């Protein structure tokens, strides 16, 4: 039964990833990534990582992919704005040829390891309480650095996305009246 679930999840994960690199429209690619991430969340559940299962659904599928879809609709990309990719499938084939030896190497190395039972067990392994104990005892420095990184990302994204178009616009056509850049601010993105 669990085998069937695993096969279904891996099929969905890989086909979502393939849909991501094949479709030209980024909206379809984002939906493929969403399917793939939800399947990986299901695999975390099969691996007894219940907290990671929730974090993957909430952060990846809930926050990051929603942000990407929101930005995609916000930019309102038309069909002719998409980059032309005439050599896409040749490049995909070249990339596959480059990546196959690495895959074979990793799979050979992993198959040499002694086999263990990876089935779902009834214990608190992967629960939020033991994970929090390890996180706040052994990985406290990494945790503090992550908090600083998130603060920097928050400030940095606000600074990057701030409106400063008016200065660039004045450089392009200097004959525009300075008050027009003020009135244009509302209707810009």
């Amino acid at each position, binding site marked *: 039964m669990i085998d069937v679930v695993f096969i279904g999840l891996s099929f969905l994960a890989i086909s979502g990833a393939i849909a991501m690199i094949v479709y030209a429209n980024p909206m379809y690619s984002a939906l493929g990534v969403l399917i793939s*991430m939800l399947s990986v969340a299901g695999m975390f559940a099969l691996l007894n990582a219940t907290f990671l299962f929730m974090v993957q659904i909430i952060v990846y599928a809930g926050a990051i992919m929603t942000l990407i879809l929101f930005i995609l609709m916000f930019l309102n990309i038309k069909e002719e704005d998409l980059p032309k990719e005439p050599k896409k499938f040749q490049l995909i084939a070249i990339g596959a040829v480059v990546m196959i030896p690495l895959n074979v190497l990793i799979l050979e190395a992993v198959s040499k390891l002694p086999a263990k039972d990876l*089935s779902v067990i009834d214990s608190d392994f992967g629960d939020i309480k033991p994970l929090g104990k390890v996180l706040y005892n052994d990985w406290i420095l990494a945790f503090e650095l992550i908090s600083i990184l998130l603060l920097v990302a928050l400030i940095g994204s606000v600074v990057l996305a701030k409106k400063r178009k008016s200065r660039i616009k004045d450089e392009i056509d200097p004959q525009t009246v300075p008050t027009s850049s003020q009135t244009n601010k509302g209707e810009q993105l």
Partner: protein
Amino acid sequence: MISLSSYAFVSMILFSIGVIGVIARRNIFVIYMSIEMMLNGVNLFLATFARYHFNMDPQVVTVIVISIAAAEAAIFLSAIILLYRSKKSLDTDIFTSLSQGEKS
């Protein structure tokens, strides 16, 4: 029984598709999603070995990787908005010249 190799196979396939996406595509959104896909493959590998060794440390590393990905998403998407405003395109070849006044 699901073996270690099958999880390793799925995670390596996801990582390889991420690398291929970064190599082959020119749409900047797809490149961003390929980077996320690579991180996802690595996360699956780490969670597999956490279960294999019955150790919590890889899962903690996975949580840290997910939070780094969340921070990266904010910065990367605001950078995409800036690039799209100045160049009106999503093509990475156009982004090679980053001067402000030049049109396309």
